[in-house]
């Protein structure tokens, strides 16, 4: 019973929040002189009306799943990783670098190698905040923010000094490292859909398995909930904090490889962050930090973002409206106390 009820409310709160968020968006549109029905119809069409947009939606939420997993994994172990963005950038670069090397390698080796390189780079970027947290109790929020900026500048500098091709970017990776697929493109009317979504799903399964089915996950969760009790149980807390950031960073790095090996096949010099890492925070929250939740939330956000393009094109509603809606959804989820309070009151009335 208890368990069932928890599952129910774990599902209810995001759902109610999404509905409230969309409603609030509609109200904002009414007040600012847009037609919410036209806009939401366009939004819906922008996600589902043809195979192209559907392909693009999946393409859009593939890295979101992984960046969401990165945030969620850290959350589960008591850490707040705002550094997903930076870890993603170094992962992207590493995947492209490997993709540019090893001409003639079979894809069955080349692709995993490139993804692993991305994971390793992201993990490396996670080591720094993890180590400083474990060893010097430096707040990971600050270090991860700093590491984001360092990643942005360093990645740009590396591209500019060593990998530059015309157009402010690297060369395009070898075909053997590419996740792009002519087949997937052909069935989605040349969308950029690539095999990365399989990687993301595998990522979600790995996270679930790691957290819930292994002794490592047991330790990581224990440390996240109660470091004192973990110490008491003989768990090496410092090692687990570092490990948690490393694994989180690895997920983020793989998210970067989705762009490097899938969507683009190269990396551009970036003047600003991609935002995928920050969106991962929202995805993770909405997904209640669970693997399946993250996948669903990423799908929702990816859809909203792709749909927003059509909404702007058809109903002239700025895409920022969707950002507002997403922010409100997070607010509602975070303030779930309110929703719980309401539902508790309803329950109580029903009982007595």
């Amino acid at each position, binding site marked *: 019973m208890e368990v069932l009820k928890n599952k129910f409310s774990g599902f209810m709160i995001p759902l109610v929040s999404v509905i409230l968020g969309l409603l609030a968006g509609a109200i904002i549109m009414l007040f600012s002189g847009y037609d919410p029905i036209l806009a939401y119809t366009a939004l819906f069409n922008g996600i589902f009306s043809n195979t192209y947009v559907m392909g693009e939606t999946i393409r859009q939420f593939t890295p979101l799943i992984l960046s969401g997993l990165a945030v969620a994994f850290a959350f589960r172990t008591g850490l707040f990783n705002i550094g997903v963005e930076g870890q993603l950038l170094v992962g992207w670069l590493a995947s492209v670098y490997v993709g540019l090397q090893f001409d003639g390698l079979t894809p069955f080796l080349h692709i995993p190698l490139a993804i692993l390189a991305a994971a390793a780079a992201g993990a490396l970027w996670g080591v720094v905040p993890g180590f400083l947290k474990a060893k*010097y109790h430096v707040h990971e929020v*600050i*270090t991860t923010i700093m590491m984001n900026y360092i990643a942005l500048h360093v990645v740009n500098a590396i591209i500019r000094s060593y990998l530059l091709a015309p157009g402010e970017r690297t060369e395009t990776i070898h075909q053997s490292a590419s996740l792009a697929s002519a087949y997937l493109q052909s069935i989605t009317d040349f969308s950029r859909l690539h095999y990365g979504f399989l990687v993301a799903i595998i990522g979600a399964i790995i996270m679930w398995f790691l957290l819930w089915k292994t002794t490592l996950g047991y330790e990581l969760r224990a440390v996240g909930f109660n470091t004192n009790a973990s110490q008491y149980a003989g768990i090496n807390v410092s090692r687990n904090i570092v490990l948690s950031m490393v694994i989180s960073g690895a997920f983020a790095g793989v998210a970067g490889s989705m762009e490097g090996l899938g969507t683009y096949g190269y990396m551009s010099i970036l003047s*600003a962050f991609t935002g995928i890492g920050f969106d991962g925070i929202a995805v993770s929250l909405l997904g209640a930090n669970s693997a399946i939740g993250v996948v669903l939330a990423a799908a929702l956000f990816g859809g909203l973002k792709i749909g927003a393009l059509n909404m702007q094109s058809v109903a002239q509603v*700025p895409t*920022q409206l969707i950002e507002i809606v997403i*922010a409100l959804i*997070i607010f509602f989820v975070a303030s779930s106390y309110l929703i719980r309070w309401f539902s508790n009151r309803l329950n109580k009335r029903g009982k007595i």
Partner: protein
Amino acid sequence: MDLMQILELIIPAAIFSAAPLIFTALGGVFSERSGVVNIGLEGLMLMGAFTGAVFTVFGEQWGFGAASPWFSFIVAIIVGALFSLLHAVASISFRADQVVSGVALNFLAAGLAVFLVKKIFDAGQTPIIAERIDKSNVPFLSDIPIIGPLFFSHAYYTSYIAIALAFVVWYVIYKTPFGLRLRSVGEHPMAADTMGINVIKMRYIAVMLSGAFAGLGGAVYATSISGSFSHSTITGQGFMALAAMIFGKWHPLGALGAALFFGLAQSLSITGQQIPLLKDIPEVYLLIAPYVLTILALAGLVGRADAPKAIGQPYEKGKGR
């Protein structure tokens, strides 16, 4: 280029780029001293920059002339305070995770400000404002040898206000009854409650003060540095202010020092390429210097020992420690 010339380039630039950070970090001090984490400084600053740019433009249209930016500061303070209410309601009253609520605030500000700009100006950015806060030499003081050119020339009045305000905030937090209560609420809210201090009210006030300060910081940024508002005006300055506050050990003067340090590192990273000594250092090292130095400083100097004890915990009456 002699040393003096180099310093004359770097130091005023440091003070200049530090000002918005100082305001915002001081706001952070209020909020976190009361026990409420405020990652939302970025969003609050963004709303402040938006308001600063928009109302300076309006002020110009309404004939306020050179007073327009100052008028916009007042509006930005109000808007910042009101906007921070969202964070306050969610994290204090509804006991939302304070970090999460702050993150949501950032998302919301980013979307809302650009949305409104598009609505108001039918463009992706505000017009460039004509009446800015300008650099000027402080009368008399700028004529003092050495000190004058370094600290009182080519500077913004807002920078001096920021520095003075840091001392005011220090006084308020460490010398007044209000400050004593504020700190007690962040250290041990239950104890404060038993002493008749309204914990919830104190936290609301603190969060709204942080909104007001961050709003001002953003408006100062818009009216002195960027001169307009667009989606790319505030990109991480709020996070840097947050870092400055933690770096400064939640102390107003510490935050001031940290913000000035960031300003210095920032101005070095840009000016450095024009300085013979630093010219040959690859640019990327200068660019990442502020961030690397912060991390090193945090690892070497500050632990979390000085964080307010009850930070991050929602207060419920009678819930104990």
